[in-house]
């Protein structure tokens, strides 16, 4: 029997870097696998160089539904006292740091039931702080959704999980519409699936100075935003 864990990624700012070393720190339009695995590892208290535990987390199937598209923004960021390549003298480096403003994602993990159970217990009282791509970008509401741990497959949850949008104005205006913008979905898939897109964000090692990522394949698609998804929405107010 499959087990899935549904999480809500909601924050004023999130950053999911894909080609990040250097002074250009970009962000993808949806959470990366390495970012999600890093967050889960922090919640469980898994060390950076615990490769086996990281591999177990990375083996989970990741499915993401974009419940609200974020707006990419640029951060003016300087780092002082960066040594020059010759090791003599120091300089100030200006880097381009991008983040997603106002994004909201439904993140579903499918796989090993015992691991998901542990995550279910610890994710909202994490061992170490959890954040969305950068230390300052903390969650705006609890990560666990009302659905939480279920026996449904991730693919089915993508199509049926209540819409996470909690802005009453947006909900109201959407329920009045007859033609709605569908929700974008991205799910892990085998490389042979037609339409599969490669992403180099499968974490292999988070060790300082030895970060490594492998290739994974995802299938981009959309799912309609239906009436039950809106009416059954996650309206629980933030405490």
């Amino acid at each position, binding site marked *: 029997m499959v087990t899935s864990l549904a999480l809500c990624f909601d924050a004023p700012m999130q950053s999911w870097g894909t080609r990040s070393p250097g002074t*250009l720190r*970009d962000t993808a*339009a949806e959470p990366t696998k390495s970012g999600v695995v890093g967050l889960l590892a922090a919640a469980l208290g898994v060390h950076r160089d615990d490769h086996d535990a990281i591999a177990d987390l990375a083996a989970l199937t990741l499915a993401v539904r*974009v419940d*609200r*598209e974020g*707006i*990419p*923004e*640029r951060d003016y960021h300087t780092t002082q006292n960066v040594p020059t390549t010759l090791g003599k003298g120091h300089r100030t480096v200006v880097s*381009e740091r*991008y983040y997603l403003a*106002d994004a909201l994602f439904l993140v579903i993990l499918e796989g090993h039931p015992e691991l998901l159970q542990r995550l279910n217990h610890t994710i909202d009282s994490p061992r170490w702080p959890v954040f969305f791509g950068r230390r300052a970008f903390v969650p705006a509401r609890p990560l666990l959704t009302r659905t939480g741990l279920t026996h449904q497959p991730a693919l089915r949850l993508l199509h049926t999980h209540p819409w996470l949008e909690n*802005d009453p*104005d*947006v909900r109201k*205006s*959407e329920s009045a*519409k007859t033609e*709605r*913008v569908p929700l*974008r979905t991205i799910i892990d898939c085998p490389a042979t699936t037609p339409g599969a897109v490669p992403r180099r964000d499968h974490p292999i090692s988070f060790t300082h100075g030895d970060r490594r990522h492998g290739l994974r394949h995802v299938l981009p698609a959309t799912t309609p935003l239906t009436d039950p998804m809106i009416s059954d929405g996650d309206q629980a107010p933030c405490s």
Partner: protein
Amino acid sequence: MFLTKLSINVRSREFRRDFANIHDLHRTVMSAYPDTDGDIPARQAHGVLWRLDPTHTGYTAYIQSHTNPAWGKLPGDYTTAPAEVRPLQPVLDTITAGRKLSFRLLANATQDTRPVELKGKTRRVAHHQPDDQIGWLIRKGDQHGFVIPTARDGQPDVNPSPVPRMTGRKDDTTVIVDPVRFDGHLIVTDHTAFTQALTTGIGRAKAYGCGLLSLAPPRNT
């Protein structure tokens, strides 16, 4: 020539979809213009150029065209105010050679490279360094009848600022545009070439929000 100002509602789901996919944004802009049956693409036939400008509260879209746009088809909550359309002829009338103007241009400043691995084929890459970007703009000025004056510090009087990468999907191909925004001053040298650049745009990726040259009186120094 017409210029439209759209005050974007950033909470609109239709706008969020368009912002995440630059090709959808292109289609939303083009929905204001009738279809063409000729061989010339509709954007070119109507002379459509547009740009999204960030504001304190969200975005403003400026859209320029030969054809009078009809914004009735825009999704209901796409904007926070009705579309404002005005003729551009008064601006075109004031352009004379030797006139100094301040300008804003979002441009796809690129160059063709011939990497070894492509065996003679070219690959277009965006300029990321400010000096390269200014060099690109100065070359475009030679071509389009304007020069960039020198500021007090002896450098060209223009500021290039980085803009988030714009991505989209057209059919089954990925669209990636790395634009740069130029704000500065220019001096018109050739009336005909400059007017032509104003109406047809500068540089590449004109369907994706690049190439629209906006003018204003020069700033006091």
